[in-house]
């Protein structure tokens, strides 16, 4: 009996219940200034609680994927990584790209997450990442600018068009170029057809060329009506994100289409001006809201981590520990963890605009998007053709047909 007990205990130890030793860890993430500061503070608290030193490696969004790719290829990635949901099929198609977090379920309290939330972090049945939040695209408008012009916040696209020229000298009602243009066109076509770009059954483009061309024409009409800055105008600012642009900070661009979790990044540069979310703007005859909702960023552990138990302790602390939750607040959106969300709601630690934006995401109706919507090649093809249309290099009809062909080719290896 003693032998049996000893064997069972030993097996338990080998299965991953070894208490984590004090260790030096690395954690990488992307974000804005607010997230950087809050995460570093939370890491200091979590590190102290569990006796680990954690080196912080943080950047802006631009270039982060390339950085992670290089690190993973060279096996020099951080022990704990904040990864993007669409990266899962790229880095871990069979689930072996990151550590299986279920092996550390005695350390990470997975009961704080719903099965659906955890399923979003699985590849091939392996739990590769835990979603920090659910996120989605929301229309945000600069209320201060609209108030100053005596206009109500837009509730439909006609009102956005009507605001052109009425918000003040050189003030544009909205901006959607590059990635935002891709999302705006996608949302438009999804509203018109009820379908996501990618058919989950066949992994091919679900839209017809006519449907896509209609979405592109709708976007172009907004530019022509002066509701959206033209692609050429935005390119004139250089390769820079909207929240870093002077016209945005000065309130000369009065709206955008962004992730709900990115609220602070866009609201902070505005200073005293107030940025607010509005319900989904719809095209005529919309069959749904076209809401693009997905698991937000995930916390993952490197499969090469020397001490995955220690990394798991830190992840659990960041997601579920009351002290860390108080520090991190809604820096990654409204937390998916039940205990964290309840604590923040109880303490009023969530910015009302972030909460409102998140509620809009959760209430919005739309098909479940494929992570392949955000595959780099799909994005590149989509963006290149929209740009070509914007520069009058190709018609919307030809662009739609060629775009679908090229995206289908890019998706071939995922069928």
């Amino acid at each position, binding site marked *: 009996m003693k032998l049996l007990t000893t064997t069972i205990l030993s097996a338990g130890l080998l299965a991953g219940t070894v208490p984590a030793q004090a260790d030096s860890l690395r954690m990488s993430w992307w974000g804005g200034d607010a997230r950087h500061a809050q995460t570093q503070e939370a890491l200091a608290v979590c590190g102290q609680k569990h006796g680990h030193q954690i080196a912080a490696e943080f950047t802006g969004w631009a270039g982060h*994927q*390339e950085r992670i*790719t*290089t690190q*993973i*290829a060279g096996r020099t990635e951080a022990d704990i990584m904040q990864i993007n949901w669409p990266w899962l099929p*790229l*880095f871990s198609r069979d689930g072996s*790209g990151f550590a299986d977090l279920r092996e550390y379920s005695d350390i990470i309290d997975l009961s704080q997450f719903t099965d659906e939330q955890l399923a979003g972090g699985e590849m091939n049945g392996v739990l590769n990442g835990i979603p920090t939040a659910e996120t989605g695209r929301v229309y945000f408008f600069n209320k201060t600018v609209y108030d100053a012009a005596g206009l109500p916040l837009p509730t439909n696209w006609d009102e956005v068009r009507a605001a052109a020229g009425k918000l003040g000298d050189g003030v544009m009602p909205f901006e959607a170029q590059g990635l935002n243009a891709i999302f705006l066109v996608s949302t438009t076509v999804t509203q018109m057809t009820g379908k996501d770009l990618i058919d989950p059954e066949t992994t091919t483009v679900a839209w017809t060329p006519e449907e896509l061309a209609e979405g592109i024409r709708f976007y172009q009409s907004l530019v022509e009506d002066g509701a959206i800055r033209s*692609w*050429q*105008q*935005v*390119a*004139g*600012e*250089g*390769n*820079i994100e909207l929240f870093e642009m*002077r*016209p945005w900070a000065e309130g000369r661009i009065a709206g955008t289409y962004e992730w709900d979790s990115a609220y602070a990044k866009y609201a902070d540069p505005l200073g005293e001006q107030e940025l607010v979310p509005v319900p989904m703007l719809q095209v005529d005859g919309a069959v749904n809201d076209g809401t693009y909702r997905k698991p937000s960023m995930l916390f993952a552990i490197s499969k090469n981590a020397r001490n995955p138990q220690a990394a798991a302790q830190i992840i659990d602390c960041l997601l579920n520990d009351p002290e860390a939750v108080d520090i991190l607040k809604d820096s990654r959106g409204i937390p998916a963890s039940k205990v964290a969300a309840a604590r923040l709601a109880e303490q009023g630690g969530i910015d009302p605009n972030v909460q409102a934006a998140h509620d809009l995401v959760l209430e919005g109706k739309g098909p479940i998007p494929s992570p392949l919507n955000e595959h*780099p*090649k799909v994005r*590149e093809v989509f963006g*290149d053709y929209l*740009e*070509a249309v914007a*520069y009058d*290099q190709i018609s919307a009809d030809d662009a739609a047909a060629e775009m679908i062909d090229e995206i289908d080719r890019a998706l071939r290896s995922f069928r």
Partner: protein
Amino acid sequence: MESRFLGLAYLAPYLIGLLIFTAIPFLGSLYLSFTDYNLIQSPVWTGLDNFRELMNDRTFMKSLRVTLLYVFLTVPLKLAFALFIAVILNYRLRAIGFFRTAYYVPSILGGSIAVAVLWRYIFADAGLVNMVLAGLGLEPINWFGDPVNALFTLSLLRTWQFGSAMVIFLAALQAVDKSLYEAAAIDGASKWHSFVHITLPLITPVIFFNLIMQMVQAFQEFNGPYVITGGGPLKSTYLLPLYIYDEAFKNFNMGYASAIAWVLFLIIMALTVVAFWSSKKWVYYAGDKRS
């Protein structure tokens, strides 16, 4: 230590660095160019497939055209400007030491991301250049949003980093024998004639050296387009190093990216060979018997 090993010991740090950071990656990329390698799984040998695909790749062709245009625009512009400044700094002016240092500084900072960011702000829609144009009553120019202007703006950034070429030109100018100018002056030659018929021929070895160095560097330009334009608009600034980077680290095609890198290497090599071949016609060395 025996003297025959001493030289080797002194060379060892450099040789080890060359081996680890240049030779091995160089050969590694040659191997990878014949494979399908997505960075996550092991490379799979595909023979010449990557090179065949390149021939039908519209993005590659566009990027190659843009790269050649950039090189042929930037290199002459930069060499001419560096020589022009070097000639001015060769005069005996008050505080010449200060000016020589001041004009060299941009090339110390030149390759950095910070300068590219600064350039982005200077030429942005509401940037310094357009503010000056507005002050002069001129229409603002869309420097980055217009495909033609965007490449030219990047070319200007590279031209502005003329310091290293300028210093080499300056050294060459100072080595020209002054008695030749005195003899030409006695014969009634103007300053311009002296420059064209004495200075230029005598510094052709240095012009040739700078030409090769600047051409190789221009083909490898990455920071400018990456930070300032992201390769746009309409891929008008999408230089080959940017395409290599995107294919390798965004699209996970390290094999294909290696193939592009090798094509770029062969182009640089071919142009260098052409430059060396043509140098027999226009580069004059000391003791050269040609008249």
